[in-house]
């Protein structure tokens, strides 16, 4: 019993079905469109939503970049990349500008995206209200009613308890002044990159079976209060130990020999590109 797989793993009917849900998502920015999420050769929770989007969109001319927590060579990024290239034979790249489709877990690249590029984000929990309301039936209605006091109250309670909003990654955003949306667990640092983005941003949650989207040039605002403005992670006066970069999202590392703390660009391809251009200059 030997079997070959179709181009990009799925049968064409499945791809078309996923694309139909994607089109609906683009038409209603920030709205979570249910779709018949397939079981994939990688585990649920490991990026199957993003992977299904990528495989449904990819054509023979595409160039793919896949990153996991900012790294092109993180185990899971490598794993997904291997699957995509194995089932399609298309080109892969680490270079952000070269890629036509960028699938990412938990980061938006530091190099600004361009028109025509598609950023696919992997989403674990697509429902921004899930922590205040466990029932899907109810949260769906809350969205329909634009009833977001739960999200506001969550932030308010954080301020009351901790003195500021303590959301970490996945700080909720308001999309096109209509839907409150989970931006996937990108750091707050990346939230701003979603606003009026040149590139199309697609978000896929495989296990939760939802696709949603931010079309290019859509208004995306992080939820915040007038007196408690939205704050990103601060890396003031921190510099990357490798490339000297500033004002980017940093990994905090410990030098094994000296035991000292140091910083390094989280976006590894940004870091390498910067080094390369400095070397050639």
């Amino acid at each position, binding site marked *: *019993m030997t*079997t070959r*797989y*179709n181009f990009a*793993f*799925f*049968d064409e*009917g*499945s791809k078309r079905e996923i694309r139909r849900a994607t089109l609906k998502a683009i038409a209603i920015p920030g709205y979570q469109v249910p*779709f*018949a*999420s397939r*079981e994939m050769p990688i*585990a*649920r*929770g*490991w990026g199957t939503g993003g992977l299904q989007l990528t495989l449904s969109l990819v054509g023979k001319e595409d160039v793919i970049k896949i990153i*996991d*927590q*900012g*790294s092109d*060579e*993180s*185990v899971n*990024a*490598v*794993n997904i990349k291997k699957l995509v290239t194995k089932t399609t034979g298309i080109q892969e790249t680490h270079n952000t500008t070269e890629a036509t489709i960028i699938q990412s877990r*938990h980061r938006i690249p530091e190099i600004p995206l361009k028109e025509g590029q598609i950023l696919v984000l992997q989403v*674990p929990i697509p429902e921004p209200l899930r922590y205040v309301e*466990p*029932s*899907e*039936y109810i949260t*769906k209605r809350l969205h329909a009613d634009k009833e977001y006091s739960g999200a506001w109250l969550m932030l308010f309670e954080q301020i009351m308890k*901790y*003195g*500021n*909003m*303590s959301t*970490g*990654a*996945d700080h909720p955003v308001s999309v096109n002044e209509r839907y409150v949306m989970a931006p996937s*667990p*990108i*750091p*707050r*640092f990346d939230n701003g990159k979603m606003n009026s983005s040149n590139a199309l941003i697609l978000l896929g949650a495989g*296990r939760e*079976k*939802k696709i949603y989207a931010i079309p290019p040039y859509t208004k995306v605002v992080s939820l915040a209060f007038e007196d408690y403005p939205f*704050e990103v*992670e*601060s890396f003031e006066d921190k510099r990357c130990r490798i490339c000297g970069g500033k004002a980017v*999202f940093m*990994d*905090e*590392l410990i030098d094994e020999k000296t035991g000292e703390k140091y910083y390094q660009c*989280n976006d590894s391809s940004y*870091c*390498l590109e910067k080094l390369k251009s400095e070397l050639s200059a």
Partner: protein
Amino acid sequence: MAYVAVKGGTIAIEESIKRLKYERLRKREILSVKEIEAGMRGLIDQVMSESSLYSEELAAISIKQGEGNPEESVFLLRAYRSTLPRKHYSRVVNSEDMIVERRISASFKDIPGGQTLGSSYDYTHRLIDFDLINEKIEDALEWLERFEMETDEKKDNVHGGKMPKVLDYLRSEGLVLDCRENNKEPKDVTKKSIEFPTERSERLQVLTRGQTGSVTTLGYAALRGYGALHPTVGELRIGNLPIYVDNPLNDSKDDEDSFYIGEIRVTEVETLIPIPIEKERGKTELEFEIGYGMCYGQNETKAIAMSILDYCLETGNPKYSTHDEEFVLLHIDSVEATGFISHLKLPHYVTFQSKLDSVRKTKKGE
């Protein structure tokens, strides 16, 4: 920074995969797919049921590849299933047409057609049979020959083939309400994602695909204290069901014109649950409600637990989480549950860094 160093992930993964192969082969024995198919019926049935893909051969390959780990084997089969286009739908299958091998009722001793024990572990002592260490193929073949001769001789007085359903007897006695056939096109959760409230066809589908352990656990919880019911197995039957498809070349939808494409072996359970019904002038009467379970293969515990949960979700008592369809249906799938739990092993450096920043800010505020 063990496994997200800037470079080197690719090589590390390749080495890890080699290690995995080494673990499978290091004892210098190779399990053949045929041996797995022949000797691991229980695991094959479980894997086919959780994968919702009926193929003993594919299940055996995936069990070999997953080194007997059901979670891994189900995962492989489900991913394979995603690549299969749906070419035909079968005609409605009626469980009265089952060629029954085992059929018992815990409600009535003397059911029409009689009890047929078939093959079951229920009546064995769970003592390890050390003779299996040195089991010889010659002995096995000899035993088989004798057994087959014996059964041939007895064939005349052994029930085989179709049997009446126990519940039909109860219906004729007026103890169970007659329910009409519902031949509405079932919803398919693999074609359209589940939305709440669900239809019964969706619930039954999710339950039958559920992880054996999860379905059993939640069924047990409903039975023990989080569901307040005490069901009796009206009928449990195991056997083969013939599957037919309509002639794809014309739209006749005619019985005569349909094609037999094979059989599936299933476990079917109907449990009876006594329910007090309020009658006039404060009088209550007891009536039986029914819970339904059906799984691929011989999966008796799972099918019974499924029938309990089917009833729980039909009634939806808000007091118990076993009656809450979102709680039950969204958490019992093997691929989903194991996938999300195992994703915690993925690096979370960015999200953790982000949280660290929040934690530091709250400390600063003190």
